[in-house]
């Protein structure tokens, strides 16, 4: 988080920057199928994955999810862990790679309209992160408490742990870091590299990373019965509390909204100033 003093980026681009494609009807920066498109498609994708996993659990848990020593458990559940981790890994490499590679081809100067569109996409990515956090911290934890009433826990890879810890937890890291990469490469005025690493992202990314690390402590606690705390399924057991404390770090997500709102109002102020200086409609910047 080094603070580097740099001169403010000159931001008086013409109406449409060179290389910017002409706008299609309904695909404007704040149209639902324009800048906001990823807002609901990402939500549907993540919810769809969660729904698919929940249906899978509904079919294959009883009885093959109850005894981790069986071959059925190996193929239906342990292999699912592999599929999830590999899947998230592939998505991470592809997406982050695309974000960084395509950034090189972006024009240096872009219009206010384009920047607004990018902020809308950025908010959509925050939304995806938010939805992911819901599945990792509410939907599947509810199942965890419920499912562990049906068997004696005999592995770290229980049916309820598998989507929660081994898909949505790592996906949270992917989404948080990916959102940062998007901000860094597409919103230089807010998250450009010369501004140093933002505290808002530091907190949000820390939340996702520490949650992943906490999985190890959780399994340790359940396996050793330290201070008689691992033998029973007491949901409020002390070694669950770090999940909560790390989760609070995700409060940094509000700062992302705050920072980009301030940038939006700054853009609007710039537009007003520019229109006051150049009142002619033909040359008014948009």
């Amino acid at each position, binding site marked *: 988080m080094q603070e580097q003093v740099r001169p403010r980026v000159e931001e008086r681009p013409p109406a449409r920057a060179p290389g910017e494609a002409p706008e299609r009807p309904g695909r404007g920066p704040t149209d639902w199928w324009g800048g906001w498109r990823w807002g609901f498609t990402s939500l549907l994708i993540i919810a769809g994955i969660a729904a698919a996993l929940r249906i899978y659990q509904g079919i294959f848990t009883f009885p093959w999810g109850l*005894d981790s020593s*069986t071959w059925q458990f190996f193929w239906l559940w342990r292999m699912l862990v592999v599929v999830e981790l590999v899947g998230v890994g592939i998505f991470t490499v592809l997406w982050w790679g695309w974000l960084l590679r395509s950034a090189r081809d972006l024009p240096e100067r872009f219009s206010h309209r384009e920047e607004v569109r990018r902020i809308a996409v950025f908010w959509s990515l925050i939304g995806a992160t938010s939805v992911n956090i819901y599945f990792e911290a509410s939907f599947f934890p509810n199942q965890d408490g419920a499912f562990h009433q049906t*068997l004696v826990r005999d592995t770290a890879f229980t049916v309820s742990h598998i989507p929660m810890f081994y898909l949505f937890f790592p996906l949270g890291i992917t989404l948080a870091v990916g959102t940062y990469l998007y901000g860094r490469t597409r919103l230089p005025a807010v998250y450009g590299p010369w501004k140093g690493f933002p505290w808002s992202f530091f907190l949000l990314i820390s939340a996702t990373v520490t949650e992943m690390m906490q999985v190890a402590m959780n399994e340790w606690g359940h396996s050793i019965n330290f201070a008689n705390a691992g033998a029973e399924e007491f949901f409020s057991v002390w070694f669950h509390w770090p999940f909560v404390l790390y989760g609070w770090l995700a409060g940094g997500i509000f700062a992302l909204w705050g920072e980009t709102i301030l940038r939006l*109002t700054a853009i609007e102020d710039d537009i007003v100033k520019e229109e006051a200086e150049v009142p002619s409609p033909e040359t008014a910047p948009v």
Partner: protein
Amino acid sequence: MKRRFALSLLGTLVALVAVAIGSTTASAHGERAQESFIRMESVAFWDVKFSSTNIKQGEDLTLTGTAKLLETWPNNLSGGNPNVCYFTVVEPGAQFVLKDRVINGAQAPQSIFCHKGGTYEFSMTLTGRSPGNWHVHPAVAVEQAGTIIGPGTWVQVNEAAGGFSYPIKLLNGQTVDLESYGQWLIVGFSLLTFVLGLAWMIMWTWTRPTITRLAVTNQLPLNQDGGDAVGLITRQDHRNTAIIAGATAVLVIVGFTISAFAFPGRIPQQTDWVTPPTFEAPATIADASLSSAVWDPSTQVLTMTAQIKNTGKSQVTLTAFRTAYLTFVNPTARSPESGEYQMTATPAGTIDPGQTQTIEIKLPGSVLQQEELLPVGKAQMSVAGVLEVTDALGTRNMNTVQASLTPTAT
């Protein structure tokens, strides 16, 4: 056309997979991952019987048996001194309901006080609740130790006309269906509160923009909103919020008062732990101990050397060895029942009164390995269980035995 073909192919694949794994014998509930020496040394089960394995919703089945907290109870569980137990059933969710529990002849609704060396004859009455094929085990949960699972079996619950209902009679004479009692109050009142919450949120968010207020609030001290002059919060807002807050307070006060009068005679949740009567042990007819236990991985046999002294008045026979939820029967004494296994006991035959006999017992390693009950390579390598000795009159003694495990190779 192509899409239909692809869907049919997918459906066929799913069906094939389901059939392939359908013929499963997955029957455990996680007990195999519990340390073997702990399962052997903590609780032994015997005579576990299910009165039926095919019932309808609403029909009962009774699960009976005996569980003993062995004298070999591990020191690292419950501080070596178990004293609170809960006899329960391990089944996948609330597919059955438990309607009665009797321990050593006394009804025990909740936990019981237990002790190391205690023998507990249990009888639990279950009623089928959800249609399906469910694996069911009796189990003993011991405070600060965990749940030790007994032998289980599959129970088929068939659908009954009219489904499942669960009438219970309150002390005031009213009969209610436990499946749905109070549900409409819970759902209805909760929804009412949700409506109030929505009203509050809509009131604030529908009538005015949100995010652009940040530019203004950044210029105001934290405890100021500028009043009607600025327009962030108006007199109308104060009035509307007072109405919603007032309605909320009235709803809670009135609801609480009505509920308190509608359900009189309330008592707090109960902690009704009983000390069951002492198990009436049969007359002592034999003492038994193990002097060695040798595991030979090349022959896959566990060989135990036992000393049995007949302290009774008639001849006795070694009839079985029981450990955790497994039973190994001496085939020269009786035939194994369903779910039991065989051992060999040499020499075969009876032991006369006053005589001490050394018997070599061989157990099939494949069974022990399948159940992960061979503690080779574990933190404690020992075997334990009960030796069942029976006399001519049918009197049985269950003698707790333990010996260090010596593998010929690891």
